[in-house]
């Protein structure tokens, strides 16, 4: 054991001096390369996961909140909504919640100018009846308003239309029929049915509205107050009016709603609310899901897919790191081949020499990785968090979870030990005399 510690101690002694007294430029360059390698390992997968994280975050912020209660499949509305809301009001951990009544609707514009069926400027989708103040406190949807303004309390004639209704904002306008010439101030005609309609987030609004029974149809005109455009398709494919108005149109006299989005106080686990709700058997009347549990299937699938891609890219990065360190240490050892021979001649064991190269590899990797971590956590992440990258499908953030970063860090350390040892081994096993005399045998 003493011999082992002597060997480790001498390996460290040699490594420190080789690094300290070697070329500062070469050391700087190697550390810089290691920094880029680790940055690539953390940032590439971080941005990849960040695409989905951005989408998930937007989904949570603008749609579900931390916890979402929705109607069961067999019901149109959440039964015992009043009892649920009473219980929600008793939780100090809840920052805000918004109850929504959702129905299928047809929205028509320019009906006065319609001469024949082909002139129809009409589209079917979902309409949500909301309390504007509560919705704003919960999902801050006013931030997504791109024209006009968000609904105001008591504005019974106002409607905010999602960009998913509008041809102007559509990326698939040649494929589907959407509303044309809608501006703030335009009057639109909304038709809903008092027929019983089952609503699920996954269902298409068109299918819902197509079930409207004309005999029970209720029509009312609204004035467009604003247009809302969100990367969350569910938000953009709805129109929003006051809940009181939609209930009137639907002939609803009870207080049951279709969905309740709940936002917890910062850092509070949504299970603080979910568990008591389930314990009170409210799950018999509604689905109660956290944002993660309630994420749509496509988001879960994409997350899984990007996770696989991230793993593949991460693995490639690790292999690149391995090869980079291998080449650096190999060249380093090769240029010191004669000195390695001299050390062996004076009695330094091969293991001590190999350890000196492993320590050097660890030094380069540790310093490079620490610098990369500094760049990620001090510069890149705070900047990207403050200025997320805006793309048509999601707002991309940089995801760098400490646990994941620590795992990558440990992985790189293991890789650097291997990549430091192998090239040193190749050079060290050279015949001592050949190494000293510079003979290539």
């Amino acid at each position, binding site marked *: 054991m*003493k*011999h082992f510690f*002597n*060997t480790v*101690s*001498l390996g460290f*002694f*040699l490594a420190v*001096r*080789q690094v*300290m*007294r*070697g070329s500062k430029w070469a050391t700087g360059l190697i550390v810089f390369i290691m920094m880029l390698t680790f940055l690539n390992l953390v940032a590439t997968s971080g941005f990849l996961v960040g695409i989905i994280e951005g989408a998930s975050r937007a989904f949570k912020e603008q749609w579900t909140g931390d916890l979402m209660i929705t109607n069961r499949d067999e019901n149109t509305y959440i039964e015992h909504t009043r009892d649920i809301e009473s219980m929600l009001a008793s939780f100090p951990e809840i920052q805000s919640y918004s109850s929504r009544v959702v129905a299928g609707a047809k929205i028509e514009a320019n009906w006065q100018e319609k001469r024949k069926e082909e002139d129809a400027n009409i589209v079917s989708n979902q309409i949500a009846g909301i309390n504007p103040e509560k919705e704003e406190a919960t999902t801050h949807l006013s931030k997504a308003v791109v024209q006009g303004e968000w609904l105001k309390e008591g504005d019974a004639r106002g409607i905010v239309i999602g960009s998913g209704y509008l041809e102007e904002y559509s990326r698939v306008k040649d494929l589907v029929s959407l509303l044309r010439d809608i501006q703030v101030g335009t009057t639109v005609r909304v038709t809903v049915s008092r027929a019983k309609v089952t609503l699920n987030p996954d269902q298409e609004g068109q299918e819902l509205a197509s079930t409207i029974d004309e005999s029970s149809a209720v029509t009312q005109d609204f004035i467009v107050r604003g247009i809302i455009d969100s990367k969350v398709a569910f938000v953009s494919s709805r129109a929003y009016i006051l809940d009181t108005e939609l209930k009137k149109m639907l002939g609803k006299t009870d207080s049951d709603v279709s969905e309740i989005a709940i936002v917890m106080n910062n850092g509070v686990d949504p299970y603080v609310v979910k568990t008591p709700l389930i314990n009170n058997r409210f799950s018999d009347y509604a689905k109660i899901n956290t944002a993660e549990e309630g994420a749509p299937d496509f988001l879960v699938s994409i997350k899984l897919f990007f996770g696989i891609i991230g793993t593949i890219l991460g693995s490639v990065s690790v292999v690149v790191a391995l090869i980079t360190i291998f080449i650096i240490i190999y060249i380093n050892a090769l240029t010191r081949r*004669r*000195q390695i021979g*001299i*050390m*062996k*001649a*004076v*009695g*330094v*064991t*091969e293991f*001590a020499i190999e350890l000196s190269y492993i320590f050097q590899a660890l030094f380069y990797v540790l310093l490079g990785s620490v610098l990369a971590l500094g760049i990620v956590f001090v510069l890149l992440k705070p900047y990207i968090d403050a200025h997320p990258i805006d793309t048509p499908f999601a707002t991309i953030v940089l995801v760098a979870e400490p646990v994941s970063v620590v795992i990558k860090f440990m992985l790189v350390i293991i890789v650097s030990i291997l990549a430091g040892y192998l090239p040193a081994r190749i050079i060290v096993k050279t*015949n*001592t*005399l050949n190494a*000293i005399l510079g003979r290539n045998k």
Partner: protein
Amino acid sequence: MSMKKNIIQAQEIRKSFTDGTNVTEVLKGVDFTVQEGEFVAIMGRSGAGKSTLLYQLSLLDTPTSGSIQVNNKTIDTMSDTEKTVFRLHELGYVFQDYSLLPELTALENIMVPLLMQGVSRKTAEKRAYEALESVNLAVRAGNTPSELSGGEQQRVSIARAITHKPKILFADEPTANLDSFSSQTVMEIFQKLNKEDNLTIVMVTHEPEYGKLADRVVRLSDGKVVKE
């Protein structure tokens, strides 16, 4: 006169090098003996096999055939690791071109074998410093090899070779790259080590004046011992 024991015994040493189909025999059956405390000079013309013989005797190379015993140990069957450990404890080397580690100071170069032996850092420093003092170079302890003259580097090399108290010191043309003053200094150190510390020295040299300082001169010619 007391009977001294043989510290090196080499019998019928042969060494050949193969280059493709060409086989060159450099040592052609050398018998060689060195007694404990003896100062032996190996001389001969260039290409006679002097350095090759030294490498075989000092465990830096393995003979093609023949048997070598050093300090009562048969080295023919030793593994590379065993040879390294043996060199660490029993042998010291002085090379023609000094062979110091460029990133280490003079003191640190001397400390390396001591640290490998398990001597503590503090003791290694003390002993390395004493070794430097013994070659009158303590003042240059903190200098790296590039900051030392050839003669100074060779003295550091000698200090490194003796600091761990080896049984035998091997020197391969230690004065070949030095001016006459530095060469004289090196040889004085060798004589002092041999006479005062009873250190066995085997030195390859092509300079007759330094060969004369040895107890015995072994002459090689065409891979054979021709005269002792």
